[in-house]
């Protein structure tokens, strides 16, 4: 019972985000169409990849006339951050190898951030509940975008693109007292990203900023 309760708790905490993620899923469905990605391919993309920014990047490269290799590179660079994120949540993902592989797919920025208990620990049930809620919203949104298309307004008109940095700021405010060095890591991480944005492909600033955590190796 406790398990189901905590998973529901995760889903509830993720609900406002699931709405925002769903509307971006709609946008992705519409954009995929303009990028020449067919209905089925767009849906398969959201079901198997479940990484919004990477999917947007790949569609963006294709619609700008880029090659398949350029689209793949952009998406993989954007998803590079899921390597350190995956290592950080590894203790919270249990079960056999296949089950761990599948559960790991539900980890996205938002579910990772929501289930962070501080001091490097993650709540497995919050991680699962929040991830599942956001996953279903992403797929449903993509389906609506693919089939109902342009009839809906852009999420930007509702300010929903501002929901993501706001969420991350709120979650950062909870993490600043984990360690005496947490505020320094936040400042450095933000600075690294800010400085790199104009010079490297999208996605690299986030991966580079995550390297700041290596400060933790020093005693």
């Amino acid at each position, binding site marked *: 019972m406790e398990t189901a309760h905590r998973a529901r708790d995760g889903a509830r905490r993720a609900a406002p985000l699931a709405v925002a993620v769903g509307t971006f899923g709609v946008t992705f469905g519409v954009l995929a169409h303009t990028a020449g990605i067919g209905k089925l391919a767009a849906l398969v993309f959201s079901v198997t990849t479940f990484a919004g920014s990477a999917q947007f990047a790949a569609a963006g490269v294709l619609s700008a006339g880029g*090659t398949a290799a350029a689209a793949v590179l952009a998406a993989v660079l954007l998803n590079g951050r899921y390597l350190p994120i995956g290592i950080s949540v590894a203790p919270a993902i249990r079960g056999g190898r296949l089950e761990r592989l599948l559960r790991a797919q539900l980890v996205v920025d938002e579910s990772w951030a929501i289930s962070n208990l501080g001091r490097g620990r993650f709540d497995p049930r919050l991680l699962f509940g929040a991830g599942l809620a956001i996953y279903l919203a992403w797929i449903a949104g993509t389906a609506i975008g693919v089939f109902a298309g342009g009839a809906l307004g852009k999420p930007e008109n509702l300010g929903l*693109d501002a929901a993501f940095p706001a969420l991350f700021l709120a979650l950062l405010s909870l993490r600043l007292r984990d360690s005496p060095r947490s505020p320094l890591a936040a400042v450095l991480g933000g600075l690294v990203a800010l400085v790199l944005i104009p010079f490297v492909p999208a996605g690299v600033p986030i991966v580079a900023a995550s390297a700041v955590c290596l400060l933790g190796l020093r005693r």
Partner: protein
Amino acid sequence: MSTAWTVVLVVSVATIAIKGAGPVLLGGRELPARVIGVVELLAPALLAALIVVNAFSSGRHLVLDARAAGLGAAGVAIVLRAPLLLVVVVAAAVAAVVRLAT
């Protein structure tokens, strides 16, 4: 196979592998203390980078737009100890109004 399907399938396989690597290789075990020290700092570093990228960038361009106003409003709401949902809603509302006005 079309270009679109090639991209979809290659990115899917790559993402599944990237996301799965940590949990499959290390899953269910406690991380060593030194790694915990690193993971503990991953949260603030990565969250700060996600804030910067999501609020101030558009592709490779640094931009200051309605999202920044939304983020500022979120900051105020957080200082006033507003619950998470309210923080997110306030940010979206302020960004929408600023966008409408500019």
